[in-house]
C-alpha cells in the first residue's frame, strides 16, 4: 500500500512545490474553493470519520461544524507544538511533505470561513518555521494563498508562529493564550475555541497530522478513507515508535495494526532480542501497559487500546524491555511534568513538585518504606482536579507504574 501521509517516502522531493503539484497536489483545495460550498467540505470530512490526531481523538468534521457563525472573523490554528515525549511525527510531515499539511490547513480554513490561519510551532522548530515560511511564500506566489483565490471572493493568509519552550502550549487553550502573546496557561472551558478562541473569536485547532489527512480525503472521498483502518478509528495513523526497538521511527499504518506487527514486523523487534516488558502507547502521559502476548496482539485503535488499560493518545509508542526499571521510568516522567506544569492549578503545581521529591528519593535510594504508598496517594489525590489534562497526565505513569509493576518500587525502597 502506498503512503497517505508520509507520501515523500514514495515520491522523492515532495517538499518541492512543483513536485507536489505534479503529483496532484493542491487540486483538492482549488476544487473546494471553486466548486464546493464550505459546509460541503466539512461534510466530507465528517463522513470520513477522521478523528483528531493530537491525542484526544475527537471527530474532526464535527469539531468544524461547531464553529460559531454569529461571530466573525474565524481563525484556524495548526497545533505544531509536538512536545509529548516520544512524539516526532508532525516534524517529519512538515519537513518532508509540507504542502500536503498546508493544503489541509487551507481546506479547513475554507470549510470554516477563516481568512487567516496560524501554524503554532514549538520554539525548537526554528529552522522548520523558516522552511515553512518559504513553502507558504511559494504557495502565495503560485496563487494558492492570498487575496481572491482562483477568482473567487475567498482570501487566505497563513502565518507561522513560534513558541518558546513550553509543553503546555500544546494544550489548545494554552496555545491560544501563547499565540495571543501571553503566558501559555490553559483557559477555563467552556467556552470552547469553536465559539471563543483566538482573540475571543471562533477558532478551529487541529493537529498537523489531522490536517495532513484532509487533502487526501477530499481527493479520494470519504468512503475511500473510511475503508481503511477500523470502524472505531478510520484511516491511517503515524505511530512514532521509540525506546528499545531496533528501528525506531515513524510508521504510517492503518488503525488496527497490532503492537506486535508494529514492533516485530516493521521495527525489527526489540534490541538484543529482549522481551518487551512494558509499552507506553501515548508518550510520557501514557499508562504503562504490562505486556504479554494478548497485549502484543491488541489492535492499535482508540477503543482497543483502552481494553488493555491505556489510551492511544497521540500514538507515541515507547517500548520498554526487561532491563528497564519502571521506578526509573516514573522518575523520568515525573521530572518532565514537574518541569512543564504551568503553575496555574494548585494540585498540578504542588503535586508535581511533591511527586518529584519522592521519585528522586526513590531513584537515589533514600526512600523510606511509606514513600511508595505516599507517591501513589499524592498522584491519586491530583487526579481529576485540574483545569487541563496535564495534571492527570503527570499521574498516569505513576499510578499504573506502582500498581502494575510493584516489584520495581519495592526494590527501590530496600536499596
Amino acid at each position: 500500500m502506498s503512503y497517505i501521509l508520509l507520501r515523500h517516502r514514495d515520491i522523492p522531493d515532495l517538499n518541492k512545490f512543483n513536485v507536489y503539484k505534479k503529483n496532484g497536489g493542491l487540486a483538492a483545495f482549488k476544487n473546494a474553493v471553486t466548486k464546493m460550498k464550505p459546509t460541503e467540505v466539512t461534510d466530507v470530512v465528517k463522513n470520513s470519520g477522521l478523528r483528531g490526531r493530537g491525542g484526544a481523538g475527537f471527530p474532526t468534521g464535527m469539531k468544524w461544524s461547531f464553529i460559531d457563525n454569529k461571530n466573525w472573523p474565524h481563525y484556524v490554528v495548526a497545533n505544531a507544538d509536538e512536545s509529548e515525549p516520544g512524539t516526532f511525527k508532525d516534524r517529519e510531515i512538515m519537513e518532508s511533505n509540507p504542502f500536503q499539511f498546508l493544503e489541509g490547513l487551507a481546506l479547513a480554513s475554507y470549510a470554516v470561513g477563516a481568512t487567516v490561519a496560524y501554524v503554532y510551532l514549538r520554539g525548537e522548530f526554528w529552522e522548520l518555521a523558516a522552511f515553512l515560511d518559504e513553502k507558504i511564500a511559494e504557495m502565495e506566489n503560485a496563487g494558492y494563498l492570498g487575496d481572491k483565490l482562483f477568482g473567487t471572493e475567498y482570501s487566505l493568509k497563513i502565518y507561522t508562529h513560534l513558541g518558546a519552550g513550553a509543553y503546555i502550549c500544546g494544550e489548545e487553550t494554552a496555545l491560544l493564550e501563547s499565540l495571543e502573546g501571553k503566558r501559555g496557561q490553559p483557559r477555563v472551558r467552556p467556552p470552547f475555541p469553536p465559539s471563543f478562541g483566538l482573540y475571543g473569536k471562533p477558532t478551529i485547532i487541529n493537529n498537523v497530522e489531522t490536517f495532513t489527512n484532509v487533502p487526501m480525503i477530499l481527493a479520494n472521498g470519504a468512503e475511500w478513507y473510511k475503508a481503511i483502518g477500523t470502524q472505531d478509528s478510520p484511516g491511517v495513523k503515524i505511530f512514532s515508535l521509540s525506546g528499545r526497538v531496533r528501528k525506531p521511527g515513524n510508521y504510517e499504518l492503518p488503525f488496527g495494526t497490532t503492537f506486535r506487527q508494529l514492533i516485530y514486523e516493521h521495527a525489527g523487534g526489540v534490541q538484543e532480542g529482549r522481551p518487551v516488558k512494558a509499552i507506553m502507547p501515548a508518550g510520557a502521559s501514557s499508562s504503562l501497559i504490562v505486556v504479554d502476548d494478548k497485549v502484543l496482539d491488541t489492535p492499535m485503535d482508540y477503543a482497543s487500546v483502552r481494553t488493555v488499560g491505556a489510551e492511544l493518545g497521540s500514538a507515541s509508542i515507547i517500548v520498554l524491555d526487561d532491563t528497564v526499571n519502571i521506578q526509573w521510568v516514573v522518575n523520568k516522567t515525573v521530572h518532565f511534568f514537574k518541569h512543564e506544569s504551568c503553575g496555574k492549578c494548585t494540585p498540578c503545581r504542588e503535586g508535581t513538585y511533591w511527586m518529584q521529591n519522592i521519585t528522586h528519593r526513590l531513584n537515589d535510594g533514600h526512600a523510606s518504606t511509606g514513600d511508595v504508598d505516599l507517591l501513589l496517594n499524592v498522584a491519586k489525590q491530583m487526579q481529576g482536579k485540574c483545569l487541563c489534562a496535564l495534571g492527570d497526565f503527570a499521574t498516569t505513569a505513576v499510578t499504573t507504574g506502582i500498581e502494575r509493576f510493584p516489584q520495581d518500587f519495592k526494590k527501590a525502597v530496600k536499596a
Partner: protein
Amino acid sequence: MTKQVTLSINGINVTAPDGTNVVDAAKMAGIDIPVFCHHPKLAPVGMCRMCLVEVGRPVIDRATGQVVMENGQPKIQFMPKLETACTNTVSEGMVVLTTTDKADAGQKSTVEFLLTSHPLDCPICDKGGECPLQNLTMAHGPGKSRFIYDEKLRLDKLVPLGELIWLDRERCIQCARCIRFQDEVVGESVLGFDERGRSTQIVSLSDPGFDSVFSGNTTDICPVGALTTTDFRFAARPWELQAQASVCTQCPVGCNTTINTRREVKAGGDIVVKRIMPRQNEEVNEIWLCDKGRFAYHYVESKKRLTKPLIRKDDKLTRASWDAATKFAAENFSKAKKDFVVLASGRLANEDLFNLKSLADHAGGTAIMYSDMGGGDVTALVGVGQGTNIGKMGSGDAILVVASDMYQEAPIWWLRVKQAADRGATLIVANPRSTKMDRFAKHIIRYAYGDEIKTVNDLSKKGKIADEFAKAKNAIIFYGNEGLGLNGSTGLASACATLLKETEHIGKPNNGLIGVWGRANDQGAWEVGFRPEPDLEQALKGKAVYIVGADPVGDSPALAKALKGAKFVAVQDILETATTEIADVVFAAQAFTEREGTYTSGERRVQRFYAAVPVKGDTKPDFVITSILGRQMGVILEGSSVSVVFDILANSLDAFTDLSYEKLAEVHDQWPIVGRGDMYYGGTTYENMKGLGVQLAPTAQTGATVRIPKVRKEAALRPKEKELLAVPVNKLYDRGVTVNPAQLLHQRIGEATVTLHPTAAKKLGVVEGALVKISFDGVSSEGVVKLDDTISTSVALVPRSMGIAIREPVAASVVQLGKVK
C-alpha cells in the same frame, strides 16, 4: 431583568440570576464554599481548585426535550469528577453538594497541596488572625503534614514590590488575585507572574515599583500574608485592633473607611491609628481605597499637632486657656464689625462649616471659602440625581470628563468611570493633555488651555460626539479645575450644566454634574453657603480674619503678604502651619479621627464619620470652638453635640430637608457580601454597619425650576504668542498639609516640577531635570524641569500644592538656575 434560575445547594433551594456562578449563588443563600482564587469582583479563573463540589444537572430526554423523572423527582446526572464551583454557572434544576465526603476530600486535598510549599510562619505573619489560608486550613485542612518540611521550596521573604507593598514569596499561593485586580479592575498591569510551575513568582517591573495608586487593595484581597503594606507590616496583630467607621478626607469621592486602632507602648500608652481599611459602600467606593486614602492619614499624628490654644504674647505664641483665647479673638472680631472675615475650607465637616457660616452671618461679617474652584452652587442645582451609582452605568450611558486628571484628583472615581467604560459606557475625555483616563475613552477631545467653555459649548451643537452624548440613556459630567482658576471653573460648571439641561440629563439618577473638588467637603461648604472669593488678597487685607482649616500663608506669598496687613488673625487648625505662625491667636482643633461629624461628597452624598481615637491634648472639635467663640461674641451657636448641629443644619437648608443624623447611619444589604468571618471570599475589607449615607436631591430633581447662572467671563487666559502661560494642574501626592506628613509617600510626592514641551524647553534654554526659577505675579519659585511632548509649546504645567503658588493660569517666565540633578 436577567432571568432567575432556581437550583438546590446542599438541599436548600436557591434562586439566583442567570449567569451567576455557583460560589456566589451559594453565598446569596448563606452557604460558604471555600475559595482562594475566586473573588466576587474578579472574573473566575478556576485555578486554585479550592472550591471543588459535586455538581449534578437534570437529565433531559433528547426526544421530548423534557426533564426525565424518577420516583416523582427529576433524574439528576452528576458529573463524574468534582467541579469548581467558581467556574460553573447556575442552571435550572442544578443540584450542588458542597459538603459530601467526596467534596470534602477534594477541598482537603487542595489545602494539603497548598501547605506543602507554605512556610507556615503564621506566628510572625501580619495576616495571622485574618488569614483565609489559616482559616481554611483549620476548617478543611489535613490534621498533620505528610510533606517533609526540609523539602519545602525556599524563596525570598523580603521583596519590596515598591516602597509601599512588600512581597513574601514563600507565602504566595499563586492565586493571581493581585495580578488580576491590577489587570482587570484597574487596567494597570504592573504585577505579573515570572517563571512557571512551582517556581511561579510575583514580580513588578514598573518604575517606581508597583506603580499604581490602588496597590494597597491587593493586600486586602491577598488570601495569605504574601502581600503586606509597608505601613502595617510588623505593626500589630489583627486581633488586637479596634475598628471604627470613618470617611476618607483626602478627596471628594468620600470613600468609606474603617480606622483600626490599638493602644501602644511606643505612643506612651495612647490609642493610635494602625491602619486605614476600606469599608464597603457599593455606591461610593465598593470595597476599594486608593493609596492616598490608605496611607496619608499619618498627618493626624504629626509632631506638628497643635494640642492647646495659643495667644501671641511678646511676639511669641504661648499657651492660653480656651476662655482667654476665645475671649481675645471675640473682642477683636466684634470690634471689626463688617470687617470680620471667616476663611474656611472644605477640610472641615458640615457641622463646622455650618456654625462658621452662622457666626459670620450673625456677626455681620463675611464667610469665604478657601478654594480656587467654582460651581458648587451649580452642582447643587443639577448635580447627580438621588440614587446615582456609577457602578451601575454601562452600555448606553455616557460620561464626560472635562478639565480633570481624575486619576490624580479622585482615584476611585477614575476607577469607577473606567469600569463603566469597560461595561460599555461611552467615555468622553476632554483635556488639553493626555491623562491616564484616555486609554479607556471612546472619544478624546484635545483643546487648548483656555478653550474649556467653548469645548463644552460645542458639544451642544451637531456632531458625532455631541449626538452620542445627547442620545445617551444617562449622562454624567465630571468637571475639574485643571488649567483653571476660580473664574474659569465657575464658567465651566455653568457651561456643563447648560449642556446637561439641554440634553435632558438632569434631575435623574446617574445624570447630572459632579465637581472634582480639591478637598473632601468642598461641596458641603457650598451647601452651607460658603463661596470662594476671586480677589482673596483684597478680601483679607486690613480685616480681622478667622482662618479655619486652611494654610494661605504656606500656600501663597501673596496671601501671606495680605494677611500681614490684616487687623487680626485667628487660626484654627489641627497642625502648626505657616499661617498659625503669623496668628494672633491659635485654636487647637481635633482631627477627624478624634471626633464625629458628616461630610458631603462630590456626588452630594452626606456621610457620617466616627471618633476612633481619644482626643489629643486640650483640643476641641471645630464646631465647638466656633460655638464658644460665638458665645463670647454674643452669638448663640449649638456646641454640645454634632447630631444637634446637624439636625439644625438639616432644618435650615432646603437640600437637607428630611435628613437626620440617624438616617445617615442606616444600612441595607449589599452585594457582594464581604467582611464577615469568611475573609477568603471578599478579603479583609470591612462590612458597612455604620451608615451608607444619603445622597441629596439636586434642585432639578425636586421639580423646582433650574436657572443656571450665566457665564460672565471668558473661561481663562489663553496662551498668547511669544508668552509662556503657567497653568495649574493637580497631583495626587502633593505637599498639602494632609499629605506631606506621611513619610511613606515622600518618594511619590517628589519635588516641585515645571513641565514644558521639549520645543519650549529648547527655546528657553533649559534641559530636563534642571532646576529652574519660575516667576509670575511678581513672585519667584523653584522647580525641576520635566518634559512632555503631548502638551502645547506655550504652556508650563505647574502642579498645585507643590511649593509653587499658582491659583489660575498666569503669564510666567522660566530661567535655568542650576545643573541637572
